[in-house]
């Protein structure tokens, strides 16, 4: 019974935070100076030499299509109804009659594929290397890798991406500099296509992995060292437990939980970084779509991408919250 209430409370909190974030975003986008439609036509006029004689009526037409002619409150209700019930984000400016969610759903698999694989690899790598470093603290290996990861964890992901593109693609010519697959290959389920996709994903994934793994290495090392100072470890050592068992049962198990929580906290930061990496590599995911949408002031798509990323991050954090008691007997369902 207690467990159900705990679950209901968590779930309501999750729903409430999503609702608040969605509302705040709606307000933010409506607070922006200038009307997005006329702003768009102004940039058209000055960038592409488009002359518009019946400017007012065209803008009115578009405002109607985007639902901007109604008052703010009706717009807000419409927005919530469309997003939550119909999963409709409204028409995009980028590719006008197409709705934004179509563009986003087209880009989403690329982003999810890249980010999830890179995040998983870097998390595992960070945990393993960090544990080893903490165990061998003070040694030569420890100090070398520690300093390296200290440096790499501070490079913004997109800058590492730039350096990698420069070295690997332009100096050595080993790997492609951008995109997700070669233009010459037809996207279908075949071995050549898959290999090509992997070849294109190596550099962006590598830049995410190096940076994220480094910061996990540092935090895991710190955690392991602090666990090694605990009294129960001293006792376990005194009992004469084998070192591997000690490492696995006492050190690793106690450090996994804070690292799972850390993964949840890092996620937002990593997602932002990964989207920036996509922009640098022109990877056809949400980051590149965001960049394109910014160029044409496509507020529906911008809003949609931000909603999507926030939704994903909040949902993953909610799931981590739910799953945590499974890993950690100390955190029981229904207890704080």
């Amino acid at each position, binding site marked *: 019974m207690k467990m159900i209430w705990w679950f209901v409370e968590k779930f309501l909190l999750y729903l409430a935070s999503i609702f608040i974030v969605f509302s705040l975003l709606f307000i933010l986008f409506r607070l922006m100076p200038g009307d997005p439609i006329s702003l768009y036509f102004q940039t058209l006029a000055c960038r592409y030499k488009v002359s518009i004689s019946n400017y007012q009526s065209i803008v009115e037409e578009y405002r109607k299509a985007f639902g901007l002619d109604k008052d703010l409150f009706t717009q807000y209700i419409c927005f919530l109804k469309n997003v939550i019930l119909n999963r409709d984000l409204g028409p995009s400016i980028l590719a006008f009659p197409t709705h934004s969610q179509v563009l986003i759903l087209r880009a989403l698999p690329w982003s999810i594929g890249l980010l999830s694989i890179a995040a998983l690899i870097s998390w595992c790598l960070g945990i393993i290397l960090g544990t080893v470093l903490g165990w061998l603290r003070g040694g030569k290996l420890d100090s070398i890798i520690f300093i390296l990861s200290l440096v790499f964890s501070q490079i913004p992901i997109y*800058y590492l991406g730039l350096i990698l593109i420069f070295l690997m693609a*332009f100096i050595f010519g080993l790997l492609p500099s951008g995109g997700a697959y070669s233009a010459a290959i037809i996207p279908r389920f075949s071995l050549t296509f898959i290999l090509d996709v992997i070849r294109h994903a190596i550099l962006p994934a590598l830049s995410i992995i190096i940076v994220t793994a480094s910061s996990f290495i540092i935090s895991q090392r710190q955690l392991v060292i602090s666990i090694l*100072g605990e009294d129960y470890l001293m006792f376990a050592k005194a009992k004469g437990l084998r070192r591997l068992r000690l490492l696995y049962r006492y050190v690793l198990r106690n450090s996994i939980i804070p690292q799972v929580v850390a993964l949840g906290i890092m996620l937002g930061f990593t997602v932002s970084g990964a989207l920036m990496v996509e922009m640098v590599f022109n990877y056809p995911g949400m980051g590149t779509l965001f960049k394109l949408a910014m160029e044409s002031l496509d507020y529906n798509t911008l809003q949609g991408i931000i909603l999507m990323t926030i939704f994903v991050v909040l949902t993953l954090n909610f799931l981590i919250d739910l799953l945590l008691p499974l890993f950690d007997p100390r955190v029981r369902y229904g207890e704080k």
Partner: protein
Amino acid sequence: MMKVKYSKTIAIVFKNRKFKVGFVMLLAILLMASLEPLINYIRLGDKSPYEYASFDFWLPPSIEHPLGTDWFGRDVLALMLIGLKNSLIIGFLAGLVSLLIGLPIALLAGYKGGLTDAVLSSIIDGILVIPTWLIIMVIVLYMKRVSMFTLALILGLFSWPFLARCVVGQVRSLRNRAYIELAIVSNMGTFEIIFLEILPNILPYILVGFSNSIVGAMMAEAAMGIIGLGSTSLTLGMYIGSAITRGFFFRKIFHLVAFPILLLLLVFISFNLMNIGLDELFNPRLRKITGL
């Protein structure tokens, strides 16, 4: 009484080697950035460092131009110093904004506890979890031409949770210590307790939070620079962004982008070293192991 407590904390801090190295590095960078007008005056005289075609285009590094010249025939070193100065100003101003917002919120949440704490803490965690860079980018995009100070304000509005998160837990645990109880019983005012008893003890955590906020803001600013968003003043991130659009990849002039990245990296590393040093000093579990 207050003076003794603050100076004691500061004296302890400088015993740690990592903190000292980070501090000296940061000091050197700050010195370099603050000497920018003088260095540029000596090297370039009255000529504006932004002047189109002051020198030949794309010159390789030489004694006269230690970093060469760029796509507009401007001296790169002069621009790097200006960019570094502006990046640091934006970072520190944003850090200051987050200090002004984050510290009172953290103190309020930690000291009051209960529902106030629950609400404020979930707001802090919420903003931390959300990918805020995208929101900042959209704001800057729609505001079109923002000044350096407006940009710092916007960045600070989103980076205060970094600071608040570092501080709130400490305030919460201090709140239940015996000497705070004693202070309450002995009729000290809330402000007196906060300024005399709590603040000196959480000073290292405020410092960690402050530098986290600065680094967070500078990273966000650099990220925007890469896609050509930013304030009207030149920063390192914006310079990198324009180097990419001006054919840096095809000309294969590595230092044009590597040097600004290195400068930013040095700033971040020095802050991080200071943070790790503080953590080793003030985290009791770590202190036991490192033997300090």
